[in-house]
């Protein structure tokens, strides 16, 4: 391998030099990056990683960027939190949350993939970048491109949440709303990338972009004290994240940084858009596209690019996939916030609800070390909680008013306990 990484076809194995390319010209299958682990092995130790920056770039040697690349945005290195109160609520005893709701700079795990994609956009000389997005990626590309001084075209479904639209436009990106769902948007971006000399992070830069997701897996292992968990629960949209966390664990094993272990992977989707979960449940080796209909719009991809690989990774690992209703998603958002102080968006509601179900159905044993991946922030999808909480009238700034208020509250609680009042 000339460089420390190169492109390789995931199906026929044909190798390619590094280029803005995502499709094999022999069999038209997707390409992915392969890193030279033998080269990395010579210098990469736990100590060397620990001495690196407090960001995903501490794993730079395992990412597709040149050795001398100087990162400009410290994304990643998010908290891995023990979650005993949520665990108690759902029948678990050893549950952790990987909290990318606080991933910087735009509060979702997409900041990781964008950091790697935009590094490569610069290497390939693009002055304009773009993406098709269900929202979080739009935010991350817009912010990342602003910081690098790149022009940006971002295409999104017309019905995207207002917060995600605002959080894209504020960075000066050109936002193009498309009258259609994500799959329509993604298809148009494939055509645009064919026609214009732009770097689309999840189209022609996709192999590089996807590698950024590995850092979620690297961090989980390091934060657990350089060991792998028993189970990981991951939300699935295009299906890339779950395959890349698995790839990360395999790379760490190959590098001798963690002990070999079979980690089981569990995928989470919303019932209103569950093509990968359906494939896992039916044992199909292909993905049947669906027309999405769910409030979890960041997971609403009916024709998932990495769906086949996600389903395969789940099956090979001995895991499972589940899907949950929109009502369950909202309840799970509230449950995670109330028990662990983590406010996640709808995708995190999907992950939390699916995690609960996996314990309830005995697919995960309570004592097994399990990590649930929360990938986005609740402030971006507050619309789904509209009307969920009553606002009482403002009281005067007097102690007596406050005491009256407390009394009213306790009366309401008594009524609630008596079963006369149901929220």
């Amino acid at each position, binding site marked *: 391998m000339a460089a420390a990484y190169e492109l390789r076809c995931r199906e026929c194995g044909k190798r390619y030099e590094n280029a803005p390319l995502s499709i094999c010209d022999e069999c038209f299958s997707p390409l992915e990056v392969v890193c030279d682990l033998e080269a990395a092995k010579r210098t990469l130790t736990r100590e060397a990683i620990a001495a690196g920056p407090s960001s995903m770039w501490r794993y730079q040697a395992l990412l597709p960027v040149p050795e001398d690349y100087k990162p400009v945005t410290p994304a990643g290195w998010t908290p891995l939190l023990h979650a005993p109160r949520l665990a108690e609520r759902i029948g678990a005893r050893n549950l952790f949350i990987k909290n990318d709701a606080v991933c910087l700079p735009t509060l979702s795990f997409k900041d990781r993939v964008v950091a790697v994609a935009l590094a490569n956009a610069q290497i390939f000389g693009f002055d304009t970048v773009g993406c098709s997005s269900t929202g979080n990626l739009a935010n991350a590309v817009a912010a990342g491109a602003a910081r690098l001084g790149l022009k940006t075209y971002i295409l999104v479904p017309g019905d995207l949440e207002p917060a995600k639209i605002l959080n894209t436009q504020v960075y000066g990106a050109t936002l193009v709303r498309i009258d259609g769902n994500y799959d329509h948007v993604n*298809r148009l971006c494939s055509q645009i990338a064919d026609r214009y000399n732009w770097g689309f992070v999840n189209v022609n830069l996709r192999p590089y972009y996807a590698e950024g997701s590995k850092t979620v897996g690297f961090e989980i292992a390091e934060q657990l004290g350089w060991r792998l968990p028993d189970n990981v629960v991951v939300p699935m949209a295009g299906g890339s994240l779950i395959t890349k966390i698995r790839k990360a664990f395999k790379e760490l094993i190959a590098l001798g940084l963690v002990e070999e272990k079979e980690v089981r992977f569990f995928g989470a989707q919303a019932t209103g858009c569950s093509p990968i979960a*359906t494939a896992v449940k039916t044992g199909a080796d292909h993905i049947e596209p669906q027309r999405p209909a769910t409030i979890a719009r960041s997971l609403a991809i009916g024709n998932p690019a990495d769906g086949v690989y996600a389903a395969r990774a789940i099956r090979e690992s001995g895991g499972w996939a589940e899907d949950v209703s929109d009502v369950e998603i909202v309840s799970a958002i509230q449950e995670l916030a109330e028990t662990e102080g983590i406010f996640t968006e709808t995708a995190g509601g999907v992950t939390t609800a699916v995690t609960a179900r996996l314990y309830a159905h005995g697919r995960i044993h309570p004592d097994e070390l399990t990590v649930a991946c929360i990938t986005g922030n609740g402030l971006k999808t507050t619309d789904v909680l509209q009307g969920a909480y009553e606002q009482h009238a403002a009281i005067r700034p007097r102690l007596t008013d406050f005491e009256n208020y407390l009394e009213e509250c306790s009366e309401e609680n008594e009524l609630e306990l008596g079963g006369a009042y149901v929220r």
Partner: protein
Amino acid sequence: MSVRVLLPNAFQKHTNGTREIQSSAGNLPQLISEIETTFPALRSHLRDESGQVRRFINFYVNEEDIRFLGNDKYSFKDGDEVLVIPSIAGGCCAAGECASRGIRLAAVCSCCSYCGQEECCCGD
């Protein structure tokens, strides 16, 4: 009758740079045959060892995935625009068996929608 067919950049190495063709094919199998006749170099790349069109190649008719329209059974209409896009997703076999199987699964499969197990008693 004529349909406009847009080919992806990934095909161009095998089509001498042709990006667009007009076709009189009546349906998808006919269109694939016609593409293969017009561009013989593309044939071995378009199909796998068993002769099936590779699963990562997707076909769309006027913005709609052809699998939602009946796949092979869909009859092209005059003026249709057919878009060929590789590598978006898993796709399925060209014979359309997958699509029909998918419909069957959704309609009559005995899998429990809650736990995915056949003959489960979740709902009881």
